[in-house]
């Protein structure tokens, strides 16, 4: 914006110390009022149900002092950085080096991911964390189809994750129901086809299809909605699914969830210590790590499948239609694109990947309950997609790594974790509303491939 950043900095520095102090003082005063009762006084119900309270003026003073100091630091940083919109000139060598590094990130990351189980074979914790991150990468890529490509803001994505998880868990325990006719009344009976060791491989696509079906089911009513309305309806949908799972005790087990979900097998060969297990067949010593490594590569394969399908779909007419829909729905319709099918396919595709990830989650955990499918999960996945720059596959992967990794760093501060997460979400939106990767290559281009700034495109218009 400013042609001369140095001059702009000079003018903003002019108010000087008095201004900063005054600002900090006001912030501290506001903080004092805000925290006076909520932090200065602590209430708790006693054993007899009687409420008591005690004061914590020390904590209060500390919080106010933190706000005072914090606002001075923020103000100083702001002055150092210059006014909003200051353009910093980056030398061309740095730009080209950065773009080279940018191109190398994806392959290096992929190779590293493949090597993780080899390098960290004995570090169970890192493997588990890797599986978790990859699950969120897959969810992020799945939601990216809906939010990043089609521009439909979905706050209930976790519903499809839940549908996938419960589909797998319940069908794996009961077997697949099929009707058969006999001469005995009531003539049509329902039998259950037991799947044995093949359960996961048969039910994985089934979970995906069921989730996609639910995606279409959600898609139909929301066809006419746009933007924020769409967001709130998808949120309501996600909550409905969770509440039904919680209350439909006879089928879902209610709050107790489903336990004893069959573990995955390597295409029919169980990863167990027994005589039919993989270790015995290969003639190596059994180790529980085999299963973890297998799960790691399984979710890696599923995530890469998601990525591959998305990239391919973007080159098909349907993918182009999604992106056109994101940019402008009315113009889309004027050009003869069938917005109904476009939206439904986006919902179905996104939901299907959510369902696949859900089935994986169920088989990995061995136990699922409605608690795993709260709104927090939806918000987390959405935050990953937005942080990743919406539409950028690499960005989503990096964002998932940063978010889940960051979450793990705060594991010790259990109750502060969500607090920090919320603050991070607010700050990130202020700092980089377009996500970490603010540029992406257009899918269609004329003559020359050039990156467009994502500031130029509208998103989330529904």
């Amino acid at each position, binding site marked *: 914006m400013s042609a001369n950043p140095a001059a702009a900095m000079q003018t903003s520095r002019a108010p000087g110390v008095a201004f900063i102090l005054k600002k900090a003082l006001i912030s501290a005063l506001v903080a004092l009022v*805000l925290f006076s009762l909520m932090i200065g006084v602590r209430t708790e119900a006693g054993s007899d149900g009687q409420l008591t309270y005690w004061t914590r003026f020390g904590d209060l003073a500390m919080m106010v002092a933190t706000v005072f100091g914090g606002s001075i630091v923020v103000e100083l940083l702001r002055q150092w950085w210059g006014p909003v919109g200051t353009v910093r000139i980056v030398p061309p060598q740095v730009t080209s080096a950065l773009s080279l590094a940018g191109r190398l990130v994806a392959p290096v990351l992929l190779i590293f991911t493949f090597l993780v189980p080899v390098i960290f074979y004995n570090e169970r914790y890192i493997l588990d964390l890797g599986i978790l991150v990859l699950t969120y990468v897959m969810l992020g890529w799945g939601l990216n189809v809906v939010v990043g490509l089609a521009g439909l*803001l979905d706050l209930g994505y976790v519903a499809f994750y839940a549908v996938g998880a419960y589909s797998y868990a319940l069908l794996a325990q009961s077997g697949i129901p099929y009707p058969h006719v006999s001469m005995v009344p009531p003539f049509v009976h329902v039998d259950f086809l037991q799947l044995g060791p093949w359960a996961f491989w048969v039910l994985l696509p089934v979970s995906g299809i069921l989730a996609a079906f639910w995606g279409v089911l959600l898609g139909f009513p929301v066809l006419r909605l746009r933007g924020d309305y769409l967001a709130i309806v998808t949120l309501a949908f996600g909550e409905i699914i969770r509440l039904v799972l919680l209350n439909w005790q006879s089928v879902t087990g209610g709050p107790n969830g489903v336990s004893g979900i069959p573990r995955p097998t390597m295409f029919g060969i169980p990863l167990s210590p027994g005589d039919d297990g993989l270790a015995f067949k290969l003639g190596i010593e059994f180790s529980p790590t085999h299963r973890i490594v297998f799960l790691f590569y399984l979710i890696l394969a599923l995530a890469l499948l998601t990525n591959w399908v998305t990239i391919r779909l973007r080159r098909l007419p349907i993918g182009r239609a999604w992106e056109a829909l994101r940019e402008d729905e009315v113009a889309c319709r004027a050009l003869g694109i069938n917005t109904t099918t476009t939206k439904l396919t986006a919902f179905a595709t996104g939901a299907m990947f959510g369902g696949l990830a859900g089935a994986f989650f169920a088989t990995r955990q061995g136990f699922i309950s409605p608690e795993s499918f709260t709104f927090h999960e939806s918000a987390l996945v959405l935050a990953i997609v937005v942080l990743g720059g919406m539409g950028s596959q690499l960005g989503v992967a990096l964002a998932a790594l940063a978010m889940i990794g960051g979450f793990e760093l705060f594991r010790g501060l259990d*109750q502060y974790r969500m607090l920090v997460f919320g603050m991070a979400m607010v700050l990130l939106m202020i700092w980089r509303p377009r996500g970490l990767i603010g540029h992406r290559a257009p899918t269609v281009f004329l003559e020359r491939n050039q990156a467009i700034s994502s500031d130029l495109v509208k998103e989330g*218009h529904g």
Partner: protein
Amino acid sequence: MDYFAQQLINGLVLGSIYGLIAIGYTMVYGIVGMINFAHGDIFMIGGFIALITFLILVSFGLTAIPLILLVVLLVSMAITALYGWTVERIAYRPLRHSFRLAPMLSAIGMSFVLTNYSQVAQGARVKPVPPIITGGYTLHEGAGGFVVQLSNIQIIVVITTVVLLALFTWLVSSTRLGRDMRACEQDQTMASLLGVDVDRTISMTFVIGAALAAVAGMMYLLYYGLVDFFMGFVAGIKAFTAAVLGGIGSLPGAMLGGLLIGLIETLWSAYFSVEYKDVAAFSILIVVLIFLPTGLLGRPEVEKV
């Protein structure tokens, strides 16, 4: 019939509380065009502050209930209003001209912050208070021994709501601030050209919305006798449903929507199942948006390229 009458009364009282919260949503949506996702949590904060103020006053030996209630109301409104102002200042104002999704996500983040802030500050356990206002009137004694009752607290909730609504309608229709608010709702750029301080008006909208939510929080505390850190989420979504049902941007609509949601929820719990009452409320949201996207009293939105 008696049972129905009793449920009707309960539903209207619950609906008044939802209506008070819904006004905050509808006002903010009308002016800024965003769903203030953290508004439900502002309601929860209001409940907490009312509880703490009440405890302190009682421990100081105050016994005059009307005086206590007045002080609690004022303190809770004032501090919660400051929360509303701060949330707008920190999380929404920097994003006002950002792209559409940014304020929504920032609001979700703020909602997490407020929920977990009260959990950390006040603990996760439910905080019960003994009934503060007791007594009531028996309206009708049925043949089966079923008694239709109207308790004093229910009367207070409804009267407070009506008074606040009247005050608020007056504020919007005949004060300088109300005129500024309506001007900003129509066209912010034009309003600022004509000398309306847009930033201040938007701030005031959040302040008023939060103050009304604080009243709702206090009424909730008096009526149900408990607060917990998680109550903002579900109450917020239901109040938003109410705002949408009444037609977002419309103040009488928000109140009407609140009453309807309260009634539907109470009657559903009474006649069908308590477990699925939230499912019923959320389903209504979906059904309303499909068949009546502009709500009962809302204006249709014009689509432009």
